[in-house]
């Protein structure tokens, strides 16, 4: 008996060539993205870790987290190269009873970044509170109360377009309105509102989506029992929309924490000699400028000649910054999961 030839033998064809080429291209594109991301994170991770962690107990660079930024003095003393922060250098001079030691100075390259961490956390908390309140309120109005007519569609379009406005424009808007016109000066409050307005479109759009995803039957069932509109929304719509709203707010948090441009003119100072809680009366709290991580990175990377001493501060700050954003996002993810656990339908 004759052996039958293999019917299913592979035959090279133009189709096959195209298939292989496409698979190759999209695969390498993905790998390229992965490599780029890995480069960014590894650079910041490795270089930043050298600043943030130490090789001896307690393995964390404590002053980096507990001190203000200060000027670094590099000088030679009895044949040895010494690096000291501003305060330490002065104390050293007093102890050695010397008037002046010739030293190179590097601004912001010693000390820590505590005020920047505190400032960023304050900015995020305040602006997200404002953005969530305003955003959820308007989303409820748009999706539950208002009727669908041309003005409403115009408002929606305007909100969506607002999402595409560059952040520096929000910065200028905040500077003109809050800093200038309202005379809040460069302050936490002005920064809060500027950042809040920047993320509002995202919050409104996503909150509206989340509200729309709540089954209509919940609303009807509640209204048919004689509940008012607000009772219905409060007890039977909003609770089920909150996880969805939080999901997208995570993106908002990362953006608020990360943007430099909106706070450039409205909230951030290069250096401050007081911590935010050191205010004379409580109202001053809202009207004081703050330091912030992204702005600090910008300052140390752009305003000072680069060298080995400034680099440590840059990467250390970037590392902490990334970790902080990750931590806040993780927090809201966990919160969302917990809420979702409780509210299932």
């Amino acid at each position: 008996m004759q052996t039958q030839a293999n019917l299913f033998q592979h035959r090279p064809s133009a189709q096959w060539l195209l298939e292989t080429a496409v698979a190759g291209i999209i695969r390498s594109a993905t790998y390229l993205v992965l490599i780029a991301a890995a480069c960014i994170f590894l650079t910041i991770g490795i270089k930043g870790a050298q600043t943030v962690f130490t090789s001896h107990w307690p393995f964390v660079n404590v002053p980096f987290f507990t001190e203000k930024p200060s000027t670094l003095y590099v000088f030679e003393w009895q044949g040895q190269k010494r690096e000291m922060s501003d305060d330490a250098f002065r104390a050293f001079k007093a102890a050695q009873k010397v008037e002046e030691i010739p030293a190179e100075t590097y601004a912001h390259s010693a000390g820590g970044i505590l005020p920047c961490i505190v400032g960023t956390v304050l900015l995020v908390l305040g602006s997200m509170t404002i953005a969530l309140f305003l955003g959820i309120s308007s989303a409820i109005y748009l999706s539950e109360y208002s009727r669908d007519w041309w003005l409403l569609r115009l408002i929606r379009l305007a909100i969506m377009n607002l999402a595409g406005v560059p952040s520096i424009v929000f910065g200028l808007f905040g500077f003109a309105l809050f800093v200038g016109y309202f005379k809040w000066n460069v302050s936490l409050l002005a920064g809060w509102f500027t950042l809040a307005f920047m993320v509002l479109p995202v919050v409104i759009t996503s909150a509206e989506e989340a509200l729309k995803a709540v089954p209509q039957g919940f609303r009807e069932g509640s209204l048919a029992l004689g509940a008012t509109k607000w009772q219905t929304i409060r007890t039977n719509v909003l609770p089920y929309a909150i996880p969805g709203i939080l999901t997208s707010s995570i993106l908002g948090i990362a953006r608020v924490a990360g943007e430099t441009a909106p706070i450039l003119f409205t909230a951030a100072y290069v250096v401050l000699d007081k911590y935010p809680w050191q205010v004379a009366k409580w109202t001053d709290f809202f009207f004081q400028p703050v330091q912030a991580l992204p702005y600090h990175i910008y300052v140390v990377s752009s305003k000072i000649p680069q060298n080995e001493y400034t680099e440590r501060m840059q990467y250390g700050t970037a590392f902490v910054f990334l970790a902080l954003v990750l931590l806040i996002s993780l927090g809201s993810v966990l919160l969302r999961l917990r809420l979702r656990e409780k509210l299932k339908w």
Partner: protein
Amino acid sequence: MDEIPKTAAPPEPVAHAAIEVDHLDFFYGDHQALYDIHLQIPAHKVTAFIGPSGCGKSTLLRCFNRMNDLVPVARIGHGQVRIHGTDIYGPKVDPIELRKRVGMVFQKSNPFPKSIYENVIYGLRIQGRTNRNELDEVVERSLRQAALWDEVKDRLHESGLGLSGGQQQRLCIARAIAVEPEIILMDEPCSALDPIATSKVEELIFDLKKLYTIVIVTHNMQQAGRCSDVTAFFYLGKLIEMDRTEKIFTNPGEKQTEDYITGRFG
């Protein structure tokens, strides 16, 4: 379609009418959904609305508790709906108060994602009633009336969504009767249920008419036959015929009614 149905002569006045519909025209935007509906719904009886899809029976049902208010383009063109003599579309009527007296059970059972207990007392909670003993009593009474008590009494604090479809629908009925309405509107309450669950809900409807006036919209001819006292047949937004159920099913006055009931169209 060449034969546009003519409107039936107004049925004879009912001794105790719970709902009176007086020459009602109803529109969704430019589309007229109901034409000159004139009927009376007897108190403490089960009234069934039958007719093919889109004939306006659900629209009419939703006029009775003003759920149509939620549809932005819905409006009444002409006529009145009176409950106990009050025009419910009158200027001094609060739809919230109306809906406390006129309960509704929906086609798709819609228990809230809360515990069975919280589902039943939802209507009381929003009225601000917090007395635990009172609420406990209401829960037991309502669930007993809805023939659900024995099945759920040991898991009152578990989610209402854990119940089967038929149980969910009876939970919705319990939720509606917890606020002690006078009238219960049911919009195809059994359309998503299996035959056994359906028969339970039907038995329940039969029991409930002692306490409540019930209006039920149904696609299911046998269901209308089994559990209603009065049946109204609608076609293309018009009331074709309304009469005692056995008369409608045995000796309908109109040709269209007969065609529909015998399954010649619809």
